Structure formats: C-alpha cells, structure tokens
C-alpha cells in the first residue's frame, strides 16, 4: 500500500474511533437534517391530511358523485375541480401532493360496470411523496368500491342489470370472460331478489376485490397512478431537500474541524515526528491527510444523500441530475480537503490559533447555509455568504438536487470550490510547522 494511502486509512480509522469526532461528522448532520426537515413539514402545507386537486373531465352525475365521496373522506383535503393545467402546476410546485383525474367516460364506465368496463381513475403524484402516493392508491380503490356497493344496493339495481344485459348483447365480450359475466349477471339477479326479501343491506365484502382481483384479470376499478416529473423552475419539493444540504454543510464542517486539528495534535503529541522521520516526503504526509479528509467528505455526503433518498423522499431526476450531484459532491470534497489544510496550517501558528480556526469555520458554516437556508437569507447576507466555501457547496448540492442546474450553471460553484481548496492547500502548507 502506498504510504499516502496508509496514512489516509489510518486517519479515517482514528476518526471513527474518536467518538466525539465521529459523532460530529456522521451523526449530528443527519440528526440536523432530519430535525429541521421535520419541523418545517415534510411536504409543505396540509400536514395531516393529504392535499389532492381534482380534475373532472367527465362531468356526469357519476363523476360528480365520486368527487363528493373524495371530499367526504377524512384523510383528504380536496381542491377543485379545476383544469388539468392548474392541477399539474400545483403538484409541480409542491403545493399539492397529488391530482386525481376522472377522464371522460367515467360515468359511462360506471354504468357499464357489469358489462366488463372498469372505472377509470387516474392520479398524478409528486415523486418526492411516494409514501403518500401508496396511500392515495388505496384511498381511490376504497372509495370506488364503496361507490360500487352503493350501485348494487338501493333501488336502481333492476335498471342497471337490465342496462348491462342490453349492453352485453350489443357489444358482446368474447371468450370465457363474456360467459362469466353472463353467469354473474344471472347470479346477481338471484342475489338481489334474495337480499330484498331478507330486507338486508348488501354485504360490504361484495366489492372488496382489490386491485388485480376479479375474473380473468378483470378489475372493476382501474386506478393508475403516475409520477409527475418535477418542475425545473427551481423550488425544493419538500423541506428535506432543504435540510439535507444543510446537514451536508455540517458534515463537511465536522470533517474540516476533525482532520484540521488532528494534524496539530499529531505535532504536539509527537506522532508527526514518526511520520516525518519515515522515508516518505512531507508532501506524501500532507497528501495522506488530505486524502483522508476527502474520503470522509465523500462518505458523509453519500451517507446523507442516500439516507434522504431512501427515507425522506428527496430525489434526483434522471441521469443528468445524478451526474450533476456526482460533480457537486466531488468538487466539495476536493474543496474541503483544501480548507482542512488551511485550518491545519493556521491551527499551528501559535497558542489560540486553533480556537481562532474553529471560530472562523463555525462562522463560515453559519453564513454558508448551515443555519438558515441560503435562499431565505436577505440579499446582502447572500452576497456576504459568498466568502464562505460552505455557501458554494450548498449551491452545488442544491443545484443538482432541486435547482436543476445545467453543466454550465454547475461550473461556477465547482470552480469556486476547487479554488477554495487550492488556496487552502497553499496557505495551509506554507503555515505548516513540522516540529514542536
């Protein structure tokens, strides 16, 4: 193994064994991201109830009745009816979790249920709210089946059965399914006669076929949910897309502090003497140290992004967003490895310098998006924040995550980050002292 690599691995091992350091590098940023993500509401407004915009293109009594059933549901906050365009833009902006779309033909299908038609219901959801999308699918099925039981009960059944027989005669359904339907209609006739004589309500289970149930792959309810690709206008889709970049800022800070002062401690402790008397150059030693910080920066960012994606619905749309994120993570890791060298260098210039270095980094972290999200800062603060490398890391990460940066737009923060890294390296190496 090359000496730089073994120094880097040793430093990473030391980081993981130092509980306090490891906590500030890996655990604290995650807690921060989760905490601030949750207090600002996972998905904007409408906490508790899922917000749904309704688009009714059918406008038949059946569709209106369905919309009323949606409204009546406790778990949903229903807006509309409105046009498709309006509803889509609400979802794209993250103002509404999903839209429910009843296409033309909904009413006809609901009359033709017994003739093998299924009830078409479409929904589009914000991809960052996958968990809620599952809930919506269940809800729509439930409401549709509940309505169907309503169709079977009550007085209208004789007419509907007749209507269905008519239709089946006019547009026969081929094969076993047609035969099955015929038998079903006959049986249903018998069923309702008996029910009426028993003067009982229709059993609830009758409609609970669930998705994919039914005869020969036929389901009376056809719910399709698709994802509405996100709006590139550049707004975070949920608060975790804001809090996770903030968490990353704290993670990067943890790396800079942890490795920056470790070099100073190695010097006072004397282990640096061992490194410098080994047959390796000082450049190799610094490279090993920087490499350790670089890898830790990569790890902490990958961990936070991975966690945010798996658990909190933050999302990268498409290969280009992934590529941009890769670039952002890489450049900020390079940049902060350099910033770490700067801290290491100035931490050694005398007593109190280490405290100064820590304070400086803390301030840069806070104005660089660690405390208040950058876009919420007043204009002059945003300008002032540009002196902080953390600002640029935040911009790059957000650029890939929700600002929809093009390669051209990503170039600026990346170049600035590398610039900070190079400057930090040069200043740090110059200030470096090798003996006590």
């Amino acid at each position, binding site marked *: 193994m090359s000496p730089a690599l*073994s120094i880097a691995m040793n430093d990473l091992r*030391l980081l993981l064994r130092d509980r306090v350091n490891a906590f500030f590098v890996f655990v604290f940023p995650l807690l921060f991201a989760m905490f601030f993500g949750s207090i600002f509401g996972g998905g904007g407004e409408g906490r508790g109830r899922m917000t749904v915009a309704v688009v009714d293109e059918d406008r038949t009594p059946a569709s209106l009745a369905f919309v009323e059933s949606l409204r009546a549901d406790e778990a949903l906050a229903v807006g509309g009816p409105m046009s498709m365009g309006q509803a889509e833009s609400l979802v794209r902006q993250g103002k509404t979790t999903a839209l429910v779309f009843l296409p033309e033909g909904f009413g006809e299908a609901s009359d033709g249920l017994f003739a093998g038609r299924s009830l078409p219901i479409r929904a589009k959801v914000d991809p960052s709210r996958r968990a809620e999308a599952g809930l919506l699918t269940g809800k729509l099925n439930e409401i549709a089946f509940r309505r169907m039981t309503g169709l079977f009960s009550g007085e209208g059944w004789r007419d509907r059965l007749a209507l269905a027989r008519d239709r089946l005669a006019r547009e026969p359904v081929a094969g076993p399914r047609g035969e099955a339907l015929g038998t079903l209609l006959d049986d249903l006739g018998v069923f309702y006669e008996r029910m009426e004589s028993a003067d009982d309500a229709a059993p609830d289970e009758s409609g609970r076929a669930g998705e994919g149930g039914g005869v020969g792959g036929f389901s009376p309810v056809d719910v399709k949910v698709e994802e509405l690709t996100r709006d590139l206008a550049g707004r975070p889709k949920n608060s975790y897309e804001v809090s996770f970049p903030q968490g990353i800022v704290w993670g990067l800070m943890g790396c800079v502090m942890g490795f920056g002062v470790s070099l100073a401690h190695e010097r006072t*402790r004397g282990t640096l003497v061992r*490194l410098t008397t080994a047959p390796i150059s000082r450049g190799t030693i610094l490279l090993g140290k920087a490499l350790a910080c670089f890898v830790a920066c990569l790890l902490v960012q990958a961990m936070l992004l991975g966690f945010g994606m798996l658990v909190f619905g933050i999302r990268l749309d498409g290969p280009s967003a992934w590529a941009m994120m890769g670039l952002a993570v890489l450049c900020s890791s390079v940049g902060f490895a350099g910033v770490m060298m700067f801290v290491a260098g100035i931490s050694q210039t005398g007593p109190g310098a280490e405290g100064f270095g820590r304070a400086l980094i803390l301030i840069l972290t806070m104005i660089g998006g660690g405390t208040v999200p950058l876009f919420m800062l007043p204009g002059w603060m945003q300008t002032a924040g540009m002196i902080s490398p953390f600002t640029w890391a935040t911009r790059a990460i957000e650029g890939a995550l929700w600002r929809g940066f093009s390669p051209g737009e990503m170039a600026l923060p990346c170049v600035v980050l590398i610039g900070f890294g190079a400057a930090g390296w040069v200043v740090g190496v110059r200030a470096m002292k090798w003996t006590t």
Partner: protein
Amino acid sequence: MLRLDGLRKSFGPTLAVDGVSLAVNPGEVFGLLGPNGAGKSTTIHLAVGLLSPDAGRVEIRGLGPPTDPAARRVIGVAPQSLAVYDDLTGRENLAFFAGLFGLGRAERRRKADEALEAVGLLDRAADRAGTYSGGMKRRLNLAAGIVHDPSLIVLDEPTAGVDPQSRDNILGMVRRLAQRGRTVVYTTHYMEEAEKLCDRVAVIDRGRLLDLGTVHELIARHGGDTTVTITRGRGDHARSDAVPTKDPARTLREAMASGGDITAVRVDRPDLETVFLTLTGRSLRDA
C-alpha cells in the same frame, strides 16, 4: 555510523546547539548527557533530520544526510514525547509505523509482534495504547522506533518518568540491541544510566559539547583525585582527614602504617557527576 560536524541551531535568541561535532561508531551505545535545556533533544532532531541546522552538517555513514530516504530507512527514533496513537492498539500502532517504511501486510504484523515481544508488551498487543500505564507507553514508544529493524537507533530520554520495572526492561532492551550490532544514541540526564550503559558519553551543556569519551576517560580527565577520608578517635575527639589521591590503596596503607586509632574510612571515587561539576562549575542535578 553518524557524524555531526559543527552543528549550530538557534531558536530566536536561544542558541540551542552551539557548534557540536562528534562521531558515533557503529555498534556502540553512545550517551548524550546534559541537564534540562542543554540541547540534547535539539541535537538529536538535527541528527535525524527533523530540524535543519543553521550551520554544519550531518551524515549517516555512506548514505548522506538524514533527510535522504535511504538514510531514513536505517534510522529509528523514539522521541521524548510519547509518540503513539492512544486510539490504536499497541499492535496497530506498530503495524502502521512499520507500514510507513514500506513493509507489506504480513511483514508489518510479524515485525510489530517482534517489537512488542522485545519490550514485553505482547500480552497487551490488542489493547488500545490509551489504556497503557506510563511505563508501558514508554516501552511502546521505544518499540515503535525499532519496529522496522533500523541499524541506528536514536532514543530521547527513553526512561524519563518510568517505574523501575519498565526502566530495567528498557535498559535491557538497549543492551540487547547493542549486542545485535545496532548503534544506539541515547540521551539522558541520569548519570548512573550513562555510566552503566554507554560505551562513550558526550557531556553537553548550554548547547556546547564539553567533552567526549568513555566513562573511564572522562573521569580520568575531569574527575580529579579519589578522596580518602580517614577518621581517628571517637566522640568529641573524632578527627577526620580528607586526602586527595591518585592511588587510594597506597594512601590507605600509608595511613594504617602511620598508626593511630582509625575508626572509619571512606573512599569517594569521582563519577560523572564530578566530571560535570568540574566541566561546568555546576552540579548536574541543580543545573
């Protein structure tokens, strides 16, 4: 093995090393003896290339200056501070340091265990260094300096602040290294240690090399005469005569021959302490 030529080093106004020249022979245990602040550590740092001298030069025999990687490979250092990682186990510490000298994985571990064995820490190999006692850390510090099997071993106060058990272990270790033909440079301000262990001793004070030689030579040059103190009579009548002499046996015979009621005899042979006192006008311990 190691040659220092007119070394000079100052830190601001402090002249820490002032024109030190000496040569250490292969296979010898060479002591640098001097009080606190004498410039021992600075001399050693110059010798191993940690510091660069303001003037003068250092050469490792046949390999050039100690900053040269080839020269570094043959040097092992145990600094005065406990230069080990507390969060690593004894074995991990040594394996890491051995790795810096380019040893492969299996080789690293084998050498680490050999060095741990040599300083009697093999049974604590899997414990973190942070849990070691002061004496054990000193021994680990020494082991880290020899793990890559160097031929020139430089120890800066390897016995500072340790218990007698660890001290015996460390001194035994130094002797064994010398028996195996290694060259050891050793700083201390304990003259008993220097007397017992070192083939040759250099006396340093205030950055200057005052003299250099075997313990015998130094005492012969600067120790002066042995003092024979003869007490005659008892109680209030007791009377002591201190007689400086080159030949205490003869002085004693003469005293016996001259008769009288000899009640006590004391022979004070000069030692390194005396040498230091003569050389600097101060006692080593007060300096």
